[in-house]
């Protein structure tokens, strides 16, 4: 869980970079909500499923971008 990473402060650092990356997306006109970080351990399958479903909902709600995946 947050701050209790197997790699010590790893997930706190990841959180920092995820926040930064959301800003990068925002700069180029892509909704930052398309990226979200969840803290999960390997034994949290149900929560993982919930997270995936949540992100599917976000993607459905925002609709497709014009990006055809050849760019990045």
């Amino acid at each position, binding site marked *: 869980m947050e701050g209790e990473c197997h790699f010590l402060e790893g997930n706190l650092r990841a959180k920092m970079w995820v926040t930064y990356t959301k800003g990068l997306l925002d*700069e*180029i006109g892509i909704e930052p909500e398309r990226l979200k970080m969840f803290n999960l351990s390997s034994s949290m399958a149900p929560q993982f499923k919930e997270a995936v479903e949540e992100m599917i909902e976000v993607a459905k709600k925002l609709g497709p*971008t014009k990006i055809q995946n050849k760019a990045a």
Partner: protein
Amino acid sequence: MIVAERKPFEDIKAMIEDYNKILVVGCGECVSVCMAGGEKEVQILASQLRLAFEEQGKEIEVDETTLERQCDKEYLEEIKDKIDDYDAIISMACGAGVQFLAEMYNNKSVYPALNTCFIGVAEREGEWSERCRACGDCVLAETGGICPVAICAKGLLNGPCGGTNDGKCELSKEKDCAWTLIYNRLKDLDKLDNIREIFPPKKYSAQTTPGRRIHEAFKEKE
């Protein structure tokens, strides 16, 4: 190191949006260390540009490369063979690198992606602070190794102004007063006599001319 920060994305994008093929050139020295214009930042900027143009339905090709450094001709020459494939170059080096790149490839439009901020040090990961103004006339021997030119907002050589408060600068409570630091350091070193006499006016001539330095060994001898 030279510390820089990236210009706002919108500004960079506006500079190059009329071109079709762009090369983003990073620099592996200072700006790489200060996370502004190294390989990683080149990847981020190039990705952002590609995504942003694609989102707008614009066809612009953006390629990436990062040189060892941009302030040496031998490294700049590495892109000699491919430079003509591009309409414009974005340099992610400091102002010196951008200029040297533009000078070497003077038929290309070269655009800066960074604002060069200062010569400084890494306080901690992700945080840098200014230490040197490259004034050409170092006074650190007198001031206990703390530079009043770079750290005092007014560059004062004869002690603090009246705006200092609790060891901070009148500009910001975040900014240390250089002269409080200097005073305290010299007091600890028992060297306050260093700053009791009036320090002469700064020789700004050292800073402005000639802007060129030749190592003693390389000077032409008679």
